[in-house]
């Protein structure tokens, strides 16, 4: 098995937390794993991405070649499209609908949505709204992680919940609990979408 994932977003939106949680789960399952992160300059509100590769066999490159990603998971709609050339022919794109507008020339939402909905496989959800409803706006990245799980072969929800517990353990039981809820809410949305097809 192998799953190549591009994580996308804007510096400060928490994609490294998503990567860490998946990494923790994958190591538990004894999968081979490489996860290239962006640190430094771009973290100041710039576009950031992370390449995450899971496999039952050793992984060579830290970077995913173009047209090889099984999944693009983006916490921001326009950022989900920045790496589209990496998506494999029948890969999935899972994106947050809520835009992060810190630039003047942000394209029209309609243009973005048209592009996403013309892809063969996609899930769109408003993770910020869901996280706000749960009373934890910072958990929108974990909502997105939940929505991505059905598309990551080799990992299942139970394993991921352990990963989340591990990542948030330092921050106390309350934080763990609300993030688990966020995770389940995202998961449910993707499962419903899959049922429909």
């Amino acid at each position, binding site marked *: 098995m192998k799953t190549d994932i591009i994580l996308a977003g*804007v510096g400060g939106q928490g994609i490294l937390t998503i990567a860490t949680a998946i990494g923790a789960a994958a190591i538990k399952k004894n999968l081979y794993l490489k996860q290239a992160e962006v640190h430094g300059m771009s973290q100041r*509100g710039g576009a950031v991405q992370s390449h995450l590769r899971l496999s039952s066999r050793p992984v*060579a490159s*830290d970077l995913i070649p173009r047209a090889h990603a099984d999944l693009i998971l983006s916490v921001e709609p326009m950022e989900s*499209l920045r*790496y589209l050339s990496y998506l494999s022919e029948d890969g999935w794109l899972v994106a947050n609908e809520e835009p992060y507008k810190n630039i003047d020339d942000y394209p029209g939402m309609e243009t973005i949505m048209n592009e996403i909905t013309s892809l063969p496989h996609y899930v769109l959800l408003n993770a910020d709204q869901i996280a706000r409803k749960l009373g934890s706006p910072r958990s929108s990245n974990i909502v997105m992680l939940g929505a991505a799980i059905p598309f990551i072969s080799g990992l299942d929800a139970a394993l991921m919940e352990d990963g989340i517990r591990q990542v948030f353990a330092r921050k106390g039981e309350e934080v763990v609990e609300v993030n688990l809820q966020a995770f389940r809410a995202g998961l449910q949305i993707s499962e419903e979408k899959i049922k429909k097809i």
Partner: protein
Amino acid sequence: MKKLLLLGDEAIAQGAMDAGLSGIYAYPGTPSTEIMEYVQGSKMAEERNIHRMWSANEKTAYEAALGMSYGGKRAMVCMKHVGLNVAADPFMNSAVTGINGGFLVVSADDPSMHSSQNEQDSRYYGKFANIPILEPSNQQEAYDMAYEGFTLSEKYRVPVLLRITTRLAHSRSGVKRREVLPQHSLNLPQDTKQFILLPAMARVKYRILLSNQPNFREESLHSPFNKYFDGVDKRMGIIACGLAYNYLMENFRNGSIDYPVLKICQYPMPIELLKKITDECEEVLVVEEGYPFVEELIKGLLGTGVFVKGRLDGTLPRDGELDPDLVAEIFWKGKPLPHKTPDWISRRPPMLCKGCGHIDTFLALNEALKDYGPGHVFSDIGCYTLGANPPYNAIYSCVDMGASVTMAVGAADAGLFPSACVIGDSTFTHSGMTGLLDAVNKNSPVTVIISDNQTTAMTGGQPTPGLNRLEKICEGLGVEPDHVRVMVPLKKNHDENVKILREELEYRGVSVVISRRECIQTASKKKRAAKKSKKTNT
């Protein structure tokens, strides 16, 4: 033993600690920062009392590490590639003095300049100093090389250079640990003159270094990090160095590559293996991250003899980071992509955080200077360099750490008035202070604005060496106390700040304006930490 999931940087840190490290010395710099941060966060470092405090700059870090080695203990110094320029003097000379306790120099290169001013290749420094270089291809090798680098260093009593690049530094993978070795105890060099580079002694020491060159090559020949893989198709041989080896193998995932492959991860280059591949094959492809270092050496200036493909003949781009796609293009040209990135996606460059104090400093400075026209402000490296972008367009230089002060001095010498500079607090103590001393000594008409956010923000908020002492430092260097001013960069203080800046810009002598407000990221991190500790205490 269970595998640890580590960044390349962290693997180096763990490898060094497991090898009995006694001290790590560093100044932050992407992509090397996480090596020190990992040691600082580790229990093992605490238990072993490993020295792990940041230094004021790379040169002080290097020399302190050399002192630890003098004491017979294993020491490591870490920096980004341009940091090695700052530490180049002790670096070159320590190759001549040699070391006592094992000594590892880690230099992290940044091809494609993700967070840097240039993409220089540290391997040239290793060759320049005539010392062994290790260049890991993956996280496990990063660990193993840090671990074994100390043994190599102690065997020949030379510093060993460990070169990594951004991609490996910031990529995570599983790493297996080895046996944890004891730390060395204090043990001075047997030769009491070893570290005295008076000419007569330096000549002797230098000859020892030169006489070791064949031994270093022999080490490379037998190194487990260098490997020769036979192949049946001798029309081409491939030399792949460090991380580039993975990009090559990514393109032959079924493991069957028909060409002979030479993987080089330890230098100086093993001549026998180079000879073998060039004799055996009609042409040679060199895939390496950074400059065409190996390529140029085997091609030679005249390009006669071996036919070599790589970055110099356009087979690969001359600049920038490699990736698996660039390597794929060599073998399978122009494979179509199922999905294309739309061309209307906007760029999203890094920018100053909303509410950052640097913003208020620039707004006040722009207004204070508006009658003078453009071109009066030199700057430096840090978050505040983003003041070069719209809507501020406030600065006209960013060259190397500390250069803002000295360039302002030189421009004032050329007749520019007012001549001002904006420098961060950490950059000021890194290498701005000496420039200010020059300015004081010739009473140069310059205004040094220290945009003091009380942290080293650009690299993630490390402590700043001059915290709450900048006024005293400037006065100590000889700036008149009346012309060491402090302002608080807040919107509500704008008019007052413009006035302070105007007064000092117009002053025909050295003036310093400290514009002080804590970085909001650091402040909120502190607040969160305080909240958490309160919670756990109750």
